[in-house]
């Protein structure tokens, strides 16, 4: 059974080589971002997440809202297994697909096809499975002959198409999405939306961080607000306005 269980998760970033105290004070005073305290010599600690707990079962589609630097992406990265907690526990059962950063495993001088293969491998797809899927992925990007050209010749929107097509080609039980989806032209946006909806339907659990409330409303059934590393409990989507007003 797929599940995501996060209990009392605390994540602190050591920030190395930042010795400017004024910057520290500057950030600490700002309304956005986590709490910053002084660690041992030359290292500052940013508390990105503080005592966050959540539990997701199959069928849960959680939307994360909150200002920039609140810790939404950090939480996604913890669930993806990239960041280790400083305290607390993250337990995930199920195959994860994370669409956190479209530059993942991208080599600008390699061709589109090479990048599709490379990214698929990094995402945990076996070479033989990748060989089976590559035509379908290539088709979905709509990039045609451009796929034989190096990626550095692509525009940002074209790169997004490619990254999106590869990452969404996996059959994952748990889907982690971050904001970057909003690229590509209108035509692709529609295609992407369609694909995302089908992907969300196929996956068991979704965690989606976004500032776009419309997207949150259309994909999610639960909601959580994160601010300065502190998370609210999980609410039903119907209480979104109430939560944002608070």
């Amino acid at each position, binding site marked *: 059974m797929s599940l995501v269980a996060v209990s009392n998760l605390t994540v602190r970033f050591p920030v190395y080589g930042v010795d400017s105290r004024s910057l520290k004070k500057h950030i600490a005073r700002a309304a956005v971002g986590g709490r910053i305290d002084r660690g041992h010599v030359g290292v500052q600690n940013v508390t990105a997440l503080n005592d966050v707990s959540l539990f997701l079962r199959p069928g849960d589609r959680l939307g994360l809202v909150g200002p920039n630097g609140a810790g939404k992406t950090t939480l996604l990265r913890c669930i993806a*297994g*990239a960041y280790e*907690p400083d*305290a607390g526990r993250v337990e*995930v059962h199920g195959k994860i697909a994370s669409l956190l950063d479209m530059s993942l495993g991208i080599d600008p001088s390699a061709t589109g096809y090479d990048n599709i293969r490379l990214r698929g491998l990094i995402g945990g797809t076996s070479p033989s499975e990748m060989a089976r899927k590559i035509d379908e992925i290539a088709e979905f990007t709509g990039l045609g002959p451009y796929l034989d050209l190096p990626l550095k010749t692509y525009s940002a929107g074209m790169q997004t198409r490619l990254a999106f097509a590869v990452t969404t080609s996996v059959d994952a039980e748990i889907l982690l999405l971050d904001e970057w989806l909003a690229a590509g032209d209108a035509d692709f946006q529609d295609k992407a939306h369609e694909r995302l909806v089908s992907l969300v339907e196929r996956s068991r659990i979704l965690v989606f961080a976004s500032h776009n409330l419309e997207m949150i409303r259309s994909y999610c059934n639960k909601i959580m607000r994160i601010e300065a590393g502190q998370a609210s409990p999980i609410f039903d989507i119907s209480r979104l306005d109430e939560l944002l007003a608070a």
Partner: protein
Amino acid sequence: MSPSPTILRTGGVGFLFEFERAWADLVGSVLRGPLAWALARHDIASRYRGSILGPFWITLSMGTMVVGLGVLYSQLFHLEIHAFLPYVALGIVIWSLISGLTTEGCETFNQAAAILRQTSLPLLTFVWRTVTRSLIAFSHHLVIVVAVMIWARMYSANYLMALLGLVVVVANLSWLSLLTAIASARFRDIPQVVTSVMQFAMFLTPVFWRADQLPKRGLILTYNPFYYMLDVVRSPLLSAPQDPRSWPVLLTMALVGWGVAFLLFAKTRRRVVHYL
């Protein structure tokens, strides 16, 4: 149906736990061997993409260096070129493996930053990627060695001993590579330091001069780990007498080195992604 992959991450619960996690990382990275291989192949291919000779530039550039240095030094030292060229060829080829692994080790984690920040792939996968990449380059260099040895009519050699020597050398270079990878992720000066040290070490190591040209077997050799690395691979291939200290020294170094490097890895594993 196979059990679902599981991710379990918890806060620090003592060093024994960290050690266990580091071990799990090692096991996971070995299971994902094909990924390291695919990444390494991709690295080599992309480095030479668009060039006519492709990866054989590795061979060609090494060839010109070997011939140039071999001819020059045999004149300088008044050595017979048929005996000296194989010596130099092996020296340079093995040295390039040594210096390649240590200096490229510095980039291991920095290069993989984007991947490390959003997947749960084992860190050591990227160390194996660097090791594999260096071995691929090394195999291209071997063409030169084979050509030179055929030219010098040296057909009989103790290939088995040389191969075993290569294994123990790579075992040593791997931990060194892991060490430089962690250190350079944390401190940005390390790559420069490593490059300088390796350059300096090259002159102190009998790569293209002969150990017996030293007035007496001095401290330069005794305390030079790279001397033993060269000796253990090169001497069997040249049917030359081997330094009896080479094997014991390298085996001890491999054990102690991996011990130290692994402890450091266990201690820093959860921090590495934040270093980047």
